[in-house]
């Protein structure tokens, strides 16, 4: 009966109570949503590259190597010579190796030279392969495959011409060797979306007339002559390596790190991703803290609502007192009422979260490549809801204690 009366009392103040519950619901939905995005982002981040056992590059730091080879952020301090690359490729414990050559750009996007093997071995989101949304994988020297973001941002479709610029943010363009878009990749949510992919040979081809980073004045080798030349790369920026057996990973890593001819670095992508997440993860924690503050704000709003209702409910409390309710019972009723509001808010918030997820899941996936799984509520979410209810009870103690004092002072007689 107590709970039923509390609910009836809440219904009698439906508008203010409804607003309070809505505020709590939105804050809880926000908090759980941030939590979902956070875990989704973390999972997506960790899934940026999978299936690759080692990434090899010139010796620098592991995060730096990961950043430029996978995320196309920053630059390599040095290249790996073609000879070293061949040496590693020839090792018996290497199952496959994919070279990557970076350094040029198209508009704001990086150009990456690689081989057909890249499309075969690059995996993301638990072993998914790259798929072609439109066109085919390049097979001509001057063909290019572009990521989904590149196509969307620049409005490219298959067969459009592309001119690659030398270096990054550069005005010098490889005008004499235009490329053709042969294929557009599906959205992956990885840096591949923002990459223009060409063959290793193409990288050599566009630099035929270049020396030490500048075009040789007046020299322009015709395209058909270039096609006849030996376009074996002289160096690669990095290489993705798969091992024959996972047991050999560490031995191969050690061997590459101790390679005598050249200072090289081999990293485990998973470990480096963890390291990198440790850096960007601070922002994620801050986001969670902010959304927790929103929940606290909503609960304080509830506290204010209860406070402002106390005066108009003096009569109600006097009736309870006259009927034999103790001041502690009045306190308990207000706390119970707050818990009902917090529980209703939290449940509604959970419902809003799922409605939001159902609507947003395909949009977020295609726009940001972020996959937000829709699962049954986890224990973690149950704890959040329980936490909100408990916090609601604690917060409501402030007005409830005031009501307690009021009902002791008023007794059953209220001067009106």
């Amino acid at each position, binding site marked *: *009966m107590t709970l039923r*009366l509390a609910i009836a009392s809440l219904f009698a103040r439906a508008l203010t109570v409804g607003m309070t519950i809505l505020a709590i619901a939105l804050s809880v939905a926000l908090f759980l949503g941030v939590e979902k995005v956070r875990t989704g982002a973390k999972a997506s981040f960790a899934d940026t590259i999978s299936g690759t056992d080692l990434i090899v590059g010139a010796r620098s730091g592991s995060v730096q190597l990961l950043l430029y080879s996978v995320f196309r952020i920053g630059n390599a301090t040095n290249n790996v010579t073609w000879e070293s690359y061949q040496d590693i490729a020839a090792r018996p414990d290497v199952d496959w190796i994919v070279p990557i050559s970076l350094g040029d750009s198209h508009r704001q996007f990086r150009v990456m030279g690689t081989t057909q093997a890249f499309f075969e071995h690059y995996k993301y989101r638990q072993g998914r392969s790259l798929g072609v949304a439109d066109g085919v994988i390049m097979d001509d020297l001057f063909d290019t495959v572009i990521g989904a973001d590149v196509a969307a941002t620049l409005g490219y479709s298959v067969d459009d011409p592309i001119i690659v610029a030398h270096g990054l943010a550069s005005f010098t363009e490889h005008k004499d060797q235009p490329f053709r878009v042969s294929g557009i990749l599906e959205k992956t949510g990885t840096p591949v979306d923002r990459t223009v992919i060409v063959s290793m040979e193409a990288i050599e081809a566009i630099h035929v007339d270049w020396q030490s980073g500048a075009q040789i004045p007046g020299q322009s080798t015709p395209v058909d002559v270039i096609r006849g030349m030996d376009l074996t790369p002289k160096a690669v920026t990095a290489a993705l390596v798969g091992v024959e057996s996972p047991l050999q990973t560490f031995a191969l890593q050690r061997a590459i790190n101790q390679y005598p001819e050249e200072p090289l670095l081999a990293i485990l992508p998973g470990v480096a991703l963890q390291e990198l997440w440790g850096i960007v993860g601070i922002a994620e924690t801050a986001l969670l803290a902010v959304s927790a503050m929103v929940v606290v704000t909503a609960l304080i709003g509830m506290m204010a609502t209860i406070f402002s209702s106390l005066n108009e409910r003096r009569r109600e409390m006097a009736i309870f007192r006259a009927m034999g309710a103790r001041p502690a019972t009045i306190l308990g009723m207000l706390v119970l009422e707050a818990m009902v509001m917090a529980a209703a808010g939290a449940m509604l918030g959970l419902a809003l979260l799922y409605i939001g997820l159902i609507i947003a899941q395909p949009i977020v996936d295609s726009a940001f490549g972020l996959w937000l799984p829709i699962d049954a509520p986890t224990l973690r979410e149950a704890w959040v809801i329980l936490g909100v209810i408990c916090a609601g009870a604690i917060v409501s103690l402030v007005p409830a204690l005031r009501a307690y004092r009021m009902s002791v002072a008023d007794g*059953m*007689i209220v001067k009106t």
Partner: protein
Amino acid sequence: MTPAVLTLSDVGYRWPRRGSFALTVPDFAILEGESVLLLGESGAGKSTLLSLICGTILPDRGSISIAGTELTALSGGKRDRFRAEQIGVIFQQFNLLPFGTVADNILLPLRFAPQRRKRAGNAVAQATDLCAALGLPPDVGRNKANALSVGQQQRVAVARALIGQPPLIIADEPTSALDAGSQAAFLDLLFAQTDAHQTSLLMVSHDARLGDRFDRVIRMEDIAQIERAAA
């Protein structure tokens, strides 16, 4: 001689933080089944006296005894429980929880008084009977309290005070919100019930015209002294 249901002797109370106001009641008693009208102007200490009898405030000295129990010997929580068990209270107006049903309101004191609940037996049936006896429409129990007229609300308050037969009913100007015709009808119903259950009634009013219906009419100044220090 009929035993007293309420006895106050040598009671003194001084309002905290309002040191200028003190109430003393040397001797006052209500017998079992007796109806008493207590007349007094506003400010004559009626509210304080009712609070003392109901045990929401404790006297500084003296003894208050209801149905043989010394109120001043009980703790605050016990006094609240005791009030629920022994006293039915009717206010001037706004007696009911507006969001509750009529049945919720009538059964409300039984929540805090297990013995009174036991006395009531089938509480819902008794509530229905009381409603019928008080001339309330059938099935009124399911209505929201705030859907009733003021006169009907006062009658629901009477039903609530009577349920479980507490020995003492305290009514604080229960008719002042009613017009003259309704007042008479209300008092008829109230007295029919208190007579039927041999319940004592203490009604406070400033309206002396009601006096002839009561066993005894007492003026506030006859039983109590108010002390006001020069402010």
